[in-house]
C-alpha cells in the first residue's frame, strides 16, 4: 500500500497541563511527516494548572472547547481536529467544529467505532478472503454506550464485539 498524499491535517492535543506532553513531544517528532501535531496546555511546572480549564473531563462535562483552544481559533479551519488528554494521559476525547462553528464531541465509544471501521477498511483493502482474512474484533467495557455496541454488532465486517468487566 503506497501513497503520496502528503501529511494529514493538523491535530491539536490538549495535554491538560499533565504528563501527556512527556510522551507526546517524542511521538510527535517521530510521526511529524505523517501527522502534524501541536501540543497545547503543556505547563507541567505549575501544579495548579493541572486539568484547570482544560483536559478531557473539562471538555466532556462542559461540552465545549477549552478556553485556550477556543481563543487560539485552531479549529476554525475545516478538517482540523483536536483532542484532550486527562491528567495522566490514559483517557482521551476528540472534538472538532462542524462548519467551523458547532462543537462536536467524539467520546470513547465513537472513537472505538471509528477505529474499528478504519481496521475494517484496511482488511477490505488487503483483498484477503476465506481463512486468510483477518477478523476484526472490538472490546468495550460495560460502561459503553448501548447504541455504539448495537452499531458495531450490526456491521457484518466486525466479527466480534466483547463486553469486558472492569477490575
Amino acid at each position: 500500500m503506497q501513497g503520496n498524499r502528503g501529511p494529514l491535517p493538523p491535530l491539536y492535543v490538549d495535554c491538560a497541563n499533565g504528563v501527556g506532553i512527556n510522551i507526546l513531544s517524542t511521538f510527535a517528532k517521530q510521526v511529524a511527516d505523517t501527522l502534524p501535531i501541536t501540543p497545547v496546555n503543556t505547563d507541567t511546572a505549575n501544579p495548579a494548572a493541572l486539568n484547570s480549564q482544560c483536559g478531557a473531563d473539562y471538555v466532556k462535562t462542559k461540552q465545549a472547547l477549552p478556553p485556550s483552544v477556543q481563543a487560539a481559533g485552531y479549529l476554525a479551519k475545516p478538517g482540523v481536529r483536536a483532542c484532550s488528554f486527562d491528567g495522566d494521559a490514559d483517557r482521551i476525547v476528540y472534538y472538532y467544529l462542524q462548519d467551523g462553528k458547532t462543537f462536536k464531541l467524539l467520546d470513547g465509544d465513537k472513537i472505538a467505532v471509528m477505529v474499528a471501521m478504519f481496521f475494517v477498511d484496511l482488511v477490505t483493502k488487503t483483498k484477503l478472503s476465506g481463512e486468510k482474512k483477518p477478523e476484526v474484533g472490538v472490546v468495550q467495557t460495560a460502561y459503553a454506550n448501548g447504541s455504539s455496541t448495537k452499531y458495531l454488532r450490526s456491521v457484518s465486517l466486525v466479527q466480534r464485539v466483547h463486553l469486558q468487566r472492569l477490575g
Partner: protein
Amino acid sequence: MLEQSWEAHATALSNCQNTDSLVSTFTTLAHHLRVDLNGQASIVFARDTRPSGDELVKALRKGLEAFGTSVKIQDVGITTTPALHHVVRATNDKSGYTGTPTVEGYVEKLAKAFKVAIVR
C-alpha cells in the same frame, strides 16, 4: 487497575493503627494469598506530574527496600499510565514480542505502527 478484591486488602492495611498491627495484617494477608515472602519479586513503577508523587515514591521505595535484595525495583520516572503499562508488560514478556521495556520503546512502537497503518 487494582483488582476488585484488593480494595479490601488496601483498606485493611492503610487503617492499621501501629507497626505491630501493620506487620500482623500484612503477614496474615500474605499467608491468605499464598505469597512466598522469601520469593523474588519485580516491581515497576512510575508517577505522573502531581506534587504528591515525590512523597508517594519515597514511601513506596522504603516499603520495597524493607525486603532487601529479593525485590528488584525499576523506577520508570515521570510518565503516562499507558507507557507504564507497556513497560510492565514488556518486562514480563520474555519473548520480546511486546517490545523494549522502556518509555522510548513504547513511543517507537506506537509511532512505527501508526506510520504503517496510515500510509498516505
